[in-house]
């Protein structure tokens, strides 16, 4: 009987039933997966997918935030590429960040991590001290830097004055405003530093030992052992740094406003003070969207930013094949 049932089960209606049950289980499993993923799906759709699609649509409209958007075709893009004289200075300022701020940030975070990994005593203390600035709220930290670097009353220039050096105008000079922001960024590099520290500590001891046996000095060990071993973290730091610099806003917004002092009405304040040197692309975007009721144009600017961010990230990732090593896999 049982073998007959077995045959039936393989071919007869029972097999169909089993298949159905299997399918049902699969569906149930898919349902469960979807259910478990639903917080992410909802969040992603509502806070990423929808805004992205809606910005893309709005970039082809005139939208003043107050009335319904009106279709204008490519007019916003035309204005962006052909007429808006503020775009190019803003792009140049943002490129400056990518060219100077990002590499410095990576080198500085790596350097501090390297030193902390070598510390013999007070490791916990030094790690805390170097990490601590990362906890300071951005606005507060920026205000503190504007105060510290005040050309007349700031402690930095006072100390420089005692050394017989006339300190620069810092946030008040178009030459020094971006370096001042860079100092602020380097001071708050803690998060990146912690990641580098973990990576540096994680470099296998035996690699150092064998390179030492081969006669490698300290610099060679960094060049041929540490750097290749932590290269995935460097890649991460560069990509995150570039994206951050493309979105650089809060520090510039606060520093320009505070350094300039009060001017006219809030909506007429010159955001790029001094001389548009801190008018970064996102600052201009904000100004257009939220100060001038030009949200359609701001959306077009955001679309360009997205495309550029994507392109730059892809470029870095592609180039990473040449310089990033994954353990056990050699070059990717």
């Amino acid at each position, binding site marked *: 009987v049982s073998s007959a049932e077995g045959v039936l089960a393989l071919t007869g209606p029972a097999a169909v039933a089993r298949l159905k049950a299997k399918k049902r289980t699969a569906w149930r499993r898919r349902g469960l997966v979807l259910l478990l993923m639903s917080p992410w799906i909802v969040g992603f759709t509502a806070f990423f997918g929808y805004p992205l699609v809606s910005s893309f649509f709005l970039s082809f409209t005139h939208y*003043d935030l107050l009335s319904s958007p*009106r279709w204008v075709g490519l*007019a916003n893009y035309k204005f962006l590429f052909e007429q808006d004289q503020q775009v190019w200075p803003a792009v140049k300022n943002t490129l400056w960040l990518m060219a100077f701020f990002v590499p410095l940030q990576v080198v500085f975070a790596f350097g501090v991590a390297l030193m902390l990994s070598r510390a013999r005593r007070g490791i916990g203390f030094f790690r805390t001290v170097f990490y601590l600035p990362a906890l300071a709220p951005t606005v507060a930290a920026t205000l503190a830097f504007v105060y510290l670097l005040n050309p*007349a009353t700031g402690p930095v220039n006072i100390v420089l004055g005692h050394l017989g050096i006339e300190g620069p*105008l810092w946030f*008040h000079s178009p030459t020094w405003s971006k370096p001042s922001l860079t100092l602020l960024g380097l001071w708050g590099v803690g998060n990146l530093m912690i990641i580098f520290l973990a990576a540096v500590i994680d470099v296998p001891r035996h690699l150092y030992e064998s390179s030492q046996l081969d006669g490698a000095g300290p610099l060679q060990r960094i060049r041929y052992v540490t750097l290749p071993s932590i290269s995935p973290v460097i890649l991460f730091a560069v990509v995150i740094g570039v994206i951050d610099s493309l979105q650089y806003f809060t520090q510039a917004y606060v520093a320009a406003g505070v*350094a300039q002092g009060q001017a006219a009405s809030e*909506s007429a304040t010159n955001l790029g003070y001094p001389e548009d040197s801190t008018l970064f692309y996102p600052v201009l975007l904000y100004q257009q969207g939220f100060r001038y009721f030009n949200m359609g144009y701001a959306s077009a600017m955001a679309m360009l930013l997205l495309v550029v961010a994507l392109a730059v990230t892809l470029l870095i990732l592609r180039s990473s094949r040449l310089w990033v090593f994954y353990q056990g896999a050699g070059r990717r």
Partner: protein
Amino acid sequence: MIRVVAALSVVLGALALTGCGGGGSKDSSSKNTAAADKTPVTLTFWSPFTARELHVMDAGIAKFHKRYPWITVKSVGAITADKLTASIHAGNPPDVASMFETDNLGAFCNSGAWQDLNHYIDADEFDMNQFPKTIRDYTAYKDKRCALPLLADSYGLYYNKALLAKAGIAAPPKTVDQLAADAKKLTTRNPDGSLEVVGFNPLMGWYENAPVHWGPMWGATWMNGDKSGLADSPGWEEMARWQKKLIDWYGYDNLVRWQASSGDEFSASNAFETGKVAMNLDGEYRIGFIKAEAPKLDFGTAPLPTSKPDLYGTSFVIGTIMGLPKGAKHADAAWLFLKFFSTDETTLAQMSNGLQNIPSTLASLKSTELKYDPRFKTFMNVFANPKSSTQPVLSIGAQNQTLFASFLDKWQAGHVKDEDLPDGIANVDKQINAALEQAGSNVP
């Protein structure tokens, strides 16, 4: 705290004086068509006021309720323009809204976010000429009148009497040449050569130093018809050259260093209040701040010095605006509110006493209820001057002002060559016109 107590006592005192007879004060010379319906309603009113100022506003609202007992007002303070925008967009706006950002009116009016009040004005035969021309200008966008004023501000010259006397200057300057000469006389330097007291700070962007506030001193205007016309108004170039000459006398770097140490504008370390700047351009509200923050300061006020004698006594005028948002549920009652707070003489006087702003109608300037420091009179006079001016109301908000300020920022630092100034100004026009066109070409 002292300021709050003082303000409260002024308001309470004023209420005690007039509260009983509140209904007796003069309104505008108008009919009251909207007042026909007396069904009880609750109006929601949003304002940017907080703390002391909100108390003053609410005291006025109590008077409004006495006049129109069937209208109860729910007053909500600390509302920013962004919040207001969001509420209108979401279809859940207040019945009446007020806003400090007069620059926004063009966008609010153009988009219909604030309703055109003309049909109420016509139906009530509401007389707009009871306001000075400046107010009529800054409350309308093209032919749409979307706002009424809630008090006003005008600008003048504050001078430190003790410092002027010390420098042997008998009277405040009346011309811009005198201003420059006096500024130099009043300036003192520290032993290391840095600036100690600055006679007059000519750097744009500092405190109230903005093209929009300075322009009237040179009779400079913003628009030429529908287009930006900075290059067509020679005053701007004269202003820029005058400014640069004085900056060069101080040394740009010296001035920036001094400015960086000059203290926050709205704090007790304000440079005029601490005697670090001898003469300063500021609004009428500064008198209240000085009394609270630097009561011992011996200062005077005068109209702004001008480039031509016939301009003397004019100024820049602006003020808080209020309007009827799209989707307001009780528009008729809201209109009564708007009318009351822009024209009721007693209320305006009391609010002026409390907020230290200028009452918005010409008649209210003569109100016996007004209690003001004699130095406040300067600002009332320049406000009432028919030649005073205001900013243009544009659909692009304050973008024209920002673009011009950004150019002047480079000019004052010496990064624009002297001979390139006219071209530079013309290029600002070009940028503003492109922005105007970009906003305009999108309107079907």
